[in-house]
């Protein structure tokens, strides 16, 4: 790699503001995501502190609703999605043997829209704390008419901010598709692409398909609120359920947008530390594609209690149950990859194994939720909260951390502190379960979600969850420390980094040169 010697990195703040480099932009995405993790996490801790015991102790119900709303929006749009885009930025060019992303200027733009959008959202919270009106308080699912006729003035900020996020995601997705289609190294056919690249390829299509639908939903809200239309108001001939159909037509693929890249990460990590090729590569690709397809025809399983015709309830139940099949294939493939391997347990592998177990638990509760007659009981309770935190925290977030540990030696040239990494893993993994497992119990026992206060029979499990939450939250400061420490120095990483690592990124020196591959490698 002759190029490594003459990297011309721009300097100063301009390096970041005007960056068109996939690595710098990836870095910004990842730091943004980590920052928002602490912001959204603080909100979660306020929620858990309030719920530590029955009665109101810390916040008014009105502020509590702002917390649940912003916590959800920030974690979904500000943490999980940007983190995966950051990983794609760093890794996709390196994994397909390209010098950079296909559309570098657009890349810059899609990043910088994010802080803009979130400043606006957080500004409404700051105004609320200063006593000027309320921040969005209708839940991250913002059902009309609570989010239209009955919403605070700050909702228009929220709408604008969602529009910006949508534009950012669509541009990011276009860029990833263009990169993957056009910039693969000679010899890298589609069926030779690393699974992480495959999962992102499919995810990018999902993004392009559904972000405009979200944009449509918030645009209808905007005109209902300000220009006298009645899309969601029965009094004017509209239908509040239209909102839910549109929202979940976006929302269900959205949850796969947040999990497919996670599947990709795990499919890279497990073979490395099992020193064995991924089991069933082809079926992994097809399973991912079928999950993506099914994600478009199951949206109304979020709506069983809305009074749909029974035929529709049956259809959505059957379609949802089908998702268990490709998801099962994936889990079986990971387990078979580990089977008769030669396993070691560095931090990325620990997170990946925890992912397989805990994501599967989230998948089990997902199957339970699919069963419509039982879902009448689960719907809108803590059982649902437990389910989606298993798939999003111990699912998506765990793989993001796994990915950071796995690739940070390649990014910085330094190994992270393995001992601290393991401590971080155990703290995180145990506390996440103390936090989320009891939520299954209170949910089944009848505790609704999004309530600031509860009846005394739910006390013990809520206390467990709150304790878990605080340990979980503060453990992430250790993660921050480990990352900074690895950036500052540490044992030098080799080119291959991990003994069992395969893939083009592990043929580049560590740290990887600024312009990844300037001469395309030949893939056999």
């Amino acid at each position, binding site marked *: 790699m002759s190029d490594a010697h003459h990297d011309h990195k721009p300097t100063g703040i301009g390096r970041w503001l005007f960056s068109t480099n996939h690595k710098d932009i990836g870095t910004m995405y990842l730091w943004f995501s980590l920052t928002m993790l602490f912001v959204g996490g603080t909100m979660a801790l306020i929620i858990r502190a309030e719920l530590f015991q*029955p*009665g*109101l*102790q810390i*916040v*008014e*119900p*009105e502020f509590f*609703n702002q917390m649940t709303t912003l916590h959800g929006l920030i974690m979904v749009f500000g943490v999980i999605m940007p983190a995966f885009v950051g990983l794609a930025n760093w890794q996709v060019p390196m994994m397909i043997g390209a010098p950079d992303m296909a559309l570098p200027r657009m890349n810059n733009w899609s990043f910088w829209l994010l802080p803009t959008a979130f400043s606006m959202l957080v500004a409404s919270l700051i105004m*609320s704390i200063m*006593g*000027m009106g*309320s921040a969005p*308080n209708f839940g991250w699912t913002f059902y009309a*008419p*609570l989010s239209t*006729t009955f919403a*605070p003035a700050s909702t228009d900020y929220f709408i604008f901010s969602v529009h910006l996020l949508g534009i950012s995601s669509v541009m990011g997705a276009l860029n990833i598709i263009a990169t993957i289609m056009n910039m693969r190294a000679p010899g890298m056919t589609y069926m030779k692409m690393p699974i992480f690249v495959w999962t992102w390829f499919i995810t990018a299509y999902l993004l392009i398909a559904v972000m405009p639908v979200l944009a449509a939903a918030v645009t209808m809200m905007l005109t209902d609120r300000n220009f006298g239309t009645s899309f969601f108001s029965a009094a004017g001939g509209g*239908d509040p359920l239209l909102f839910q159909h549109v929202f979940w037509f976006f929302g269900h693929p959205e949850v796969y947008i947040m999990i497919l890249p996670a599947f990709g990460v795990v499919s890279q990590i497990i073979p490395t530390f099992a*020193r*064995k*090729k991924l*089991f*069933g*590569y082809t*079926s992994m690709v097809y399973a991912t594609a079928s999950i993506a397809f099914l994600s478009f025809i199951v949206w109304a399983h979020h709506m069983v*209690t*809305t*009074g749909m015709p029974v035929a529709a309830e*049956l259809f959505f*139940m059957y379609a949802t149950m089908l998702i268990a*099949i490709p998801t099962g*294939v994936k889990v079986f493939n990971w*387990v078979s990859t580990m089977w*008769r*391997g*030669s*396993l070691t*347990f560095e931090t990325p592998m620990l997170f990946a*194994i925890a992912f*397989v*177990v805990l994501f599967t638990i989230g998948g*089990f509760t997902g*199957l*339970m939720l699919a069963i419509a*007659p*039982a879902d009448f*009981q689960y719907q*809108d*309770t803590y059982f649902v909260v437990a389910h989606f935190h298993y798939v999003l925290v111990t699912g998506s977030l765990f793989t993001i951390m796994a990915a950071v540990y796995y690739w940070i030696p390649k990014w910085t040239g330094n190994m992270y502190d393995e001992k601290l990494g393991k401590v971080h893993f155990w703290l995180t993994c145990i506390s996440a*379960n103390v936090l989320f497992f009891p939520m299954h119990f209170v949910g*089944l*026992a*009848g505790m*609704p979600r999004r309530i600031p*206060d*509860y*009846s*005394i029979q739910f006390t013990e*499990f809520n206390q467990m969850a709150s304790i878990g939450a605080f340990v979980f939250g503060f453990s992430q400061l250790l993660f921050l420390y480990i990352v900074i420490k690895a950036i500052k120095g540490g044992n030098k990483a080799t080119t291959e980094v991990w003994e069992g690592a395969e893939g083009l990124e592990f043929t580049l020196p560590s740290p990887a040169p600024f312009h990844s591959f300037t001469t395309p490698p030949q893939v056999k």
Partner: protein
Amino acid sequence: MSAIIRYAGCLCLMLASSPLFAAYQLDMSPGVTSFSQGAYEIHQYVMWICVAIGVVVFGAMAYSIIFHRKSKGAVAAKFDDNVTVEILWTIIPIFILVSMAIPATNVLLEMEDTSKSDMSIKVTGYQWKWHYEYLDEDISFFSNISTPEAASLATNASVPKDENYLMEVDNRVVIPANKKVRFLFTSNDVIHAWWIPAFGVKKDALPGFINEAWARVAEPGVYRGKCAELCGMNHGFMPIVVEVKSEADYAAWVGEQKAAKSALAASATKTWTMAELMKHGEKVYTTNCVACHQVSGEGIPAAGFPALKGGAIATGDAAKHIDIVLKGSPGTAMQAFGAQLNDADLAALITYERNAWGNNTGDTVQPSDIKSAR
């Protein structure tokens, strides 16, 4: 590996739950209707199948983690696919899913069959209370949380936290045992959801639309639930209490309701004293207004709920005051209470607001004033 140990631990916890956790409910309740029991059974079935699959999958993982570790000298095998097992683990799940879908379909069909009901009750969600209207009798009433003080940080501490904390209302819905009761749901403002876990009934109350559900309960008793759809600030404070009475007791209850109604009509024509108005007014205010305007009358200005203490309208022209309470303020959370409260309640309420918290206007408003203002 420890992830698996932990999972096993949780399972043991669930299994051992009865002696250990006798006081807490860990699982869904089977409930008292035929379909709530059906839902419970299928919930159990699916959960235990999942546990069984989990044991196999996590067992296989645990086995490789223990026996296929590099530190024990394991050498990686070379295989990376096997068409036979891949086909098997695609086909077998299909059969398992079908075995779940069949009972699920049956329960669902039963649940959604509201035909041939014996009586109907229309349930309307309001921010933040429920209104019940017995379509076959001339009975209708609001049902509010009986401890509205619980909904505010300032007054929450004064509320005793007993076993029915947040789960008691002023007026319970009463239904007869062994009758198929059809519920019709709608809403006056945002979406709410009416949920009684023991009935297995949860249905959204949508503004402008009607949803249906039904229940037939054999055992007289008291069944409690809550609003399940986020409906704004006091979403956590709109409980539901259904009292199932034997047929004879139910008939007696209907009689009482009708008698109370005629008594009310009489009270609307008499002239009330200031003390009577204030006493009754405080009660009506606490039930209907504190959620927004607070016990102290100071409101929550930041959330858009104005103070009535020293407020321009509450200390100004009485006619304007009557007007906003009767007709509400369109496009805000201030509802038209004229449709919800009777003349006597409104008169007492407005008198109370004009004289409480140092407003001391000295005005009294009589039911007849309300009648002529309507």
